[in-house]
């Protein structure tokens, strides 16, 4: 089995999907000739030709707009937005059109498609190459929002997203792109959307994290273990629709919850997770749940490692919640 990083796993998912299903077309800025700025689509133009691997000029709204038409007519577009920070010119097409097409037409039309976008900080990207925009899309009925953390999950979730009948916003943690390798099957496989993954079983604290922060949380719970705090780590994988049941089951056992995300704190997804957990298992909670998040400021350039909720902050949070003074 090959040892692939997350970019290679994405590339494999795209290649294998293009091979299996001739309705699939991929399009985006700089994705064909140079294989994308992160090379996630490397080699696909040579293999599938420019009718299926389409370089586009710089027009995110146009890319998503034409992809909606293509999808409605029966193709399966997979769009790459170069950075999630540049998805906003396409926001109207995503929110007003893509998400609502099936609903407003009474199910007569739909536009199943995937929009891939690298998101998140930690790569010296400054304000406009670092943001985590997941809540904008979670808050829009009609979209699924998927965030893989590891190469194996990235491939299986992307192949599943491409076959899904609903539009999927697929946010790729760019900080993890080349930072981690693992065994990934070469063959086609899918992983179910809407299902969380318990990546580490524990007893004292439930930690929920996704994308790049799942790796930080992994480091933090290993250190917590050394201090005799046993943590259960949940990788949500699909943020919407969320598999809250897996979180609730865990919190009923541990009685303590920490939610980690890069996005700003206020209105962030941690608030929703904690709300749902509190509604469902208030009497199982030993203490107030805790959010460890990005700040309510734009994403800074030089101070990015302070902005991100990295392992030391997560560990401090776990300790604070496990051993309240």
């Amino acid at each position, binding site marked *: 089995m090959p040892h692939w990083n997350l970019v290679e796993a994405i590339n494999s998912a795209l290649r294998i999907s293009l091979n299996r299903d001739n309705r699939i077309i991929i399009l985006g800025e700089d994705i064909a000739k140079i294989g994308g700025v992160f090379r996630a689509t490397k080699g696909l133009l040579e293999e599938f030709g420019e*009718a299926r691997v389409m370089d*586009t000029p710089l027009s995110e709204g146009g890319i998503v707009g*034409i992809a909606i038409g293509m999808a409605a007519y029966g193709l399966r577009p997979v769009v790459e937005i170069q950075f999630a920070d540049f998805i906003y010119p396409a926001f109207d*097409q995503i929110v007003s*059109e893509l998400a609502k097409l099936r609903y407003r037409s009474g199910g007569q039309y739909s536009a199943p498609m995937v929009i891939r976008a690298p998101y998140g900080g930690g790569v010296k990207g400054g304000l406009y190459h670092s943001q985590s925009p997941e809540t904008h899309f979670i808050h829009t009925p009609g979209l699924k929002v998927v965030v893989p953390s590891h190469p194996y999950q990235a491939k299986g979730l992307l192949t599943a997203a491409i076959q899904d009948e609903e539009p999927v916003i697929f946010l790729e943690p760019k900080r993890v792109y080349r930072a981690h390798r693992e065994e990934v099957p070469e063959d086609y496989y899918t992983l179910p959307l809407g299902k969380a993954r318990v990546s580490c079983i524990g007893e004292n604290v439930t930690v929920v994290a996704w994308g790049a922060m799942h790796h930080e949380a992994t480091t933090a719970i290993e250190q917590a273990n050394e201090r005799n705090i046993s943590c259960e780590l949940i990788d949500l994988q699909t943020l919407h629709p969320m598999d809250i049941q897996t979180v609730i089951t865990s919190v009923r056992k541990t009685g303590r919850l920490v939610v980690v995300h890069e996005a700003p704190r206020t209105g962030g997804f941690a608030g929703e997770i904690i709300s749902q957990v509190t509604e469902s298992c208030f009497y199982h909670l030993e203490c107030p749940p805790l959010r460890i998040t990005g700040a309510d400021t734009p994403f800074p350039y030089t101070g990015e490692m302070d902005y991100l909720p990295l392992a030391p902050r997560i560990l401090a949070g776990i300790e604070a919640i496990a051993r309240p003074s």
Partner: protein
Amino acid sequence: MLPPTETMRIIDFQGKVLRDIPKVSRAILLRIYRVMMTVRLVDERMLILHRQGRVGFYGACTGQEAPPVATAAALQEEDWIIPGLREGAAMLYRGYPLELYLAQVFGNGLDPMRGRQMPSHQAARAVRQFSWSSCIGTQVPHAVGVGIAMSRRGDGSIAVGFMGDGATSTADVHRGLWAAAHFRSRCILICQNNYWAISQPMRSQTRSRTLAERAYAYGIPFVRIDGNDAVAVYQGVGEAAEYVRADKGPVFLEMETYRMGAHSSADDPQLYRDNQEVASWKQRDPLVRLYTFLLDSGWWTETEDELLKQKIGQSITRSLEVLEPWPIAPIEVGYGR
């Protein structure tokens, strides 16, 4: 290719033939006329019902019947129409039942869109009429994408996307024009220039003389057509469709027309528009021009016209008797997927 100075016109404001009439059958012109008349009468009735509080909203296409109806007539059955607000009439030409059309206005349980959309936001897969949101111009990239998908699928169809003059100031129209040209989409993009984007006149959209120049900037061939001349619309769209179908690339058509009424039932054009202007456009009424032409051609008579109006009026009344009391879809449908 030069910026357009001429407008394609076949029958003049008095309904007289200006040039050699293209080979267009009596049957097609009469069908265009019947559907235009149906829409005129439906719009009149729905606005009355709105004033009586029986319809929640309405966007009439009065004065603009020719572009949607004669365009539908010039297309083939499998071609897709990606409309804006004032093109629902195309569906009626393509055989969509009047009862379902009116059910959408009431948003009741018979409405294929399950009461989820406002009136005048018609869509029907059965007649290949795409779904419009309410956002201006967003549908233009969709039309271009459908046209790209059609060439990938190689099934011979073409896409026709509509927009208004106001839409030409939106980013999405420019995105659409870029993509249409760049990917040689199998699409016709039609701008119904009705001279008013709610209260903003066409001259506030651009300092250029025409809207067709928008397409010129993107290297897309364009034609300006008198949109109140159903024969010219039919002919112009037919020629454009032939060009697009031959995979020569997209075409842009500017159709000069005029919104005789309000932008919608929520608008009062008295606040921004000169009555004299409206009166001058009344002289160019597309229905009257086509009627005069048909009469002069000996293809139609006053008696037949009276009978047609009566028949349409009765079928609207009969439909309303069934549709108005019809219950809305169950609430779980309204909140469903």
